[in-house]
């Protein structure tokens, strides 16, 4: 294990765009570089996140599923029993492992995409609709985190921004009677504003004092949590009138997101249990908006310029500090949209301080898996939404705790973040390398390091 840190890092990756790294990182070149609001490593981080192809992504997911399979098999009672007499009948163990793992993943599929145990298309497709429901806030919050990434910032404050956004959206939703459509649109805008304000704190502090947004957003998560927890147990703030428990009032009917099942019945269709709601459309709109921002707008161009190289951007006349602030506002607003999703779409009968439901942190993994590109985030949000939806089915049918989804997500991201590791596992060539280069001692050594 020690040779991990013995400086082989330099030799093992000879082609890894070394010259450009030196330009941007400057390890210790300026002892006071940290005072600068721009972390030079941000550029490199961005490059790491955005590089890497679809193959690598798929392999990372496969590896994560393998890791999860090992956990599932190891804790399965049938497998443990068969392992007890392994030398007597080894085949039993393999059968048990196969049963445990295939059972788990079949129920994962069954709970997230297609329920083949039921009859009728509308019922069979219900899991897919459930996936879309789970994906809705993940996409919105993932877009928020991804937007900050593209500007070279790390928004770990998803939890806080989501909680504040949810609180504002919920407050509007139960306080102000409004006509249909307008009601939930206004509440959604409230969620956006709440998240944006909470994100803006980190942006303003970074722009004015150079405070690192990672620390500030982590701390703001807890401040938001306790702030809303206080509001939820205080009459006149967020607590339901006359209630003793820390729960907010339910939304007014007009303020909740219309569900697809309501739409189908309104159009004269059969009754369904589709919980996917208008929030999913809003997530698509948000994805298009972020795509437009980065690909077609001058603001997005400035964002990308600062993300690539803040110093060059400043030289080019871009107000870097304003870009940081604005990016955190946009990022917070998108996470706030996820908060609005939670309150107006999922827990419409009153929320408690657990309204975040882990989405704030999952958003980071969604953004990383989506490589911070709008449509990448959209699809990785769908994937993680499917894992969530399927995870509950897996828990119900196979007694496999839903927490395995956290493990899968984090392992995916670890592998995504370290392309050389995945390449080493699958013995893939490095990008740009030729057969001749692969035979160099360093490259051979790296193959052994695995």
């Amino acid at each position: 294990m020690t040779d991990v840190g013995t400086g082989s890092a330099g030799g093992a990756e000879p082609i890894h765009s070394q010259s450009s790294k030196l330009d941007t990182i400057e390890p210790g070149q300026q002892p006071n570089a940290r005072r600068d609001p721009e972390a030079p490593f941000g550029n490199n981080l961005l490059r790491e996140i955005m590089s890497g192809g679809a193959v690598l992504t798929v392999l990372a997911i496969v590896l994560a599923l393998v890791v999860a399979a090992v956990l599932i098999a190891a804790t399965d009672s049938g497998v443990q029993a068969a392992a007890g007499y392994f030398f007597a009948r080894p085949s039993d163990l393999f059968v048990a492992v196969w049963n445990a793992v295939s059972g788990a993943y079949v129920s994962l599929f069954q709970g997230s995409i297609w329920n083949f145990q039921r009859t009728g298309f509308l019922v069979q497709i219900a899991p897919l609709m459930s996936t879309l429901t789970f994906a809705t806030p993940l996409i919105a919050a993932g877009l928020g985190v991804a937007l900050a990434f593209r500007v070279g910032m790390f928004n770990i404050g998803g939890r806080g921004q989501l909680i504040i956004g949810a609180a504002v959206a919920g407050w509007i939703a139960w306080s102000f009677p409004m006509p249909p459509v307008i009601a939930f649109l206004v509440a959604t805008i409230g969620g956006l504003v709440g998240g944006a304000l909470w994100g803006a704190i980190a942006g303003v502090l970074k722009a004015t004092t150079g405070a690192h947004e990672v620390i500030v957003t982590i701390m703001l998560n807890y401040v938001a949590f306790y702030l809303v927890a206080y509001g939820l147990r205080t009459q006149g703030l967020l607590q339901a009138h006359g209630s003793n428990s820390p729960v907010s009032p339910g939304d007014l009917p007009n303020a909740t997101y219309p569900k697809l099942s309501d739409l189908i019945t309104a159009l004269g269709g059969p009754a369904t249990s589709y919980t996917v709601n208008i929030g999913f459309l809003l997530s698509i709109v948000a994805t298009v908006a972020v795509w437009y921002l980065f690909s077609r707008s001058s603001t997005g161009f400035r964002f990308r310029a600062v993300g690539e190289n803040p110093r060059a951007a400043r030289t080019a006349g871009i107000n870097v500090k304003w870009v940081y602030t604005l990016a955190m506002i946009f990022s917070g607003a998108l996470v706030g949209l996820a908060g609005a999703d939670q309150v107006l779409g999922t827990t419409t009968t009153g929320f408690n301080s657990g309204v975040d439901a882990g989405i704030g942190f999952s958003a980071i993994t969604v953004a990383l898996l989506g490589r911070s590109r709008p449509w990448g985030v959209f699809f990785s949000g769908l994937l993680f939404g499917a894992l969530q939806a399927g995870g509950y089915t897996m828990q119900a049918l196979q007694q496999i705790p839903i927490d395995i989804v956290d493990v899968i997500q984090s392992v995916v991201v670890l592998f995504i973040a370290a392309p050389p590791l995945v390449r080493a596992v699958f013995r893939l060539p490095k990008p740009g390398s030729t057969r001749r280069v692969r035979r160099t001692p360093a490259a051979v050594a790296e193959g052994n390091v695995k």
Partner: protein
Amino acid sequence: MTTATLTPSAAPIVHEKVIVRSLKVPIILDVFAIAALVFAFGIPRRGQSSFRLSTSTDFFQIPTVVLPTVATVVTVAILLVVVAILTHLLVAFSSRGRSPLWLSAVFTVLFLFLFLTWAGADLRGIPIPGLLVGGLALATPLVFGSLGGVLGERAGVVNVAIDGQLLFGAFSAALVGSATHSPWAGLVAAIVAGVLVSWVLAVFALRYWVDQVIVGVVLNVLVGGLTNFFYTKVFAQVPSLNHTTKFDTIDIPGLSQIPIIGPVFFQHTIIIYIMYIAVFVVWYALFKTRWGLRVRSVGEHPQAADTVGINVNRTRFWTVTVAGAVAGIGGAFYTLDSVSKFDKDITQGAGFIALAAVIFGQWHPIKAALAGLLFGFAENLQSTLGIIGSPVPSEFLLMLPYVVTIVAVAGLVGQSRAPAADGTPYIKS
């Protein structure tokens, strides 16, 4: 910088004697002094505040102290104003250009005393030993975690995964401690668990140059998922695997019989005594040994360190390993001292408060430990005040560590300068 590299002899250490007269500490003391004046005159609470200084089992019994609330609060508020003015004078005129740390500590203690007197008016007596013992207990994982954080960051490795280390330490201590019925085996397991998390961090951060914050955040999710998974799959099914033998309380002979101080500091399990020693050892190792100089050089200016023959990544690797071991002991506290079983998310985000303590403690082991104590005390204060009934909503006291850290990291208070190469991988050219 350029002159220093051109003529190395022209940069002796003596040149570092630049007196920085920062007004940040006095200003924050001013703010708290004004708050104290508001408590004293703006929103006075009348009546009497009583403090219970000894518990019924103490060797020496001290009678309950009853103080007139208004007079005490006013007196202490004036004292606080005096201390604040004193720091202003010290910063302006003393040769070192700053006020000593102990003065800030005295100020903090006085302010807490004022707050307790104010909040405790006409309530049942405030149990001072209980308050302090509970605070110390809540602070222990924070102190271990922050020591681990300080070690890692001094070597240039940002460790956001402290929470994961505490959690995995607590889990492993519970599992191994229950299986072997030996708390010592559990402690060793916790250390190993902390080191394992550190190694994953090291592999990704040092070997693959993955952004350290990403790895840290993801590791927290991973450890949380794993421990929750095994909790449901193993502990919930086989409860005997989640029932540890806790460490016994050891009374230090003599010291444990001192009134107040004895019960608070010297009637604990071995883990708390390890903490006292660890704070000192980490401080000594970082600032008084050759190893510590190397660690700090690697964290400040890895290229320079490399130039003089220090293996940057090896130093970082071993420092992070030690940091993981220290944080792991903090995790063991939960399941070998506090309660005898592991629970889902037992740390409740303590690792993030420890991270806050690292920053608030300015990357210094002793200051970080003091910050951890302060945060632990604030956390316990809210539960004590919640029991005896208090005018301040508990959430605002719970928020305190995070708010002061934001204030600190924004540079509004004190110096908040991370090691220069913190978070950047060293890529040898």
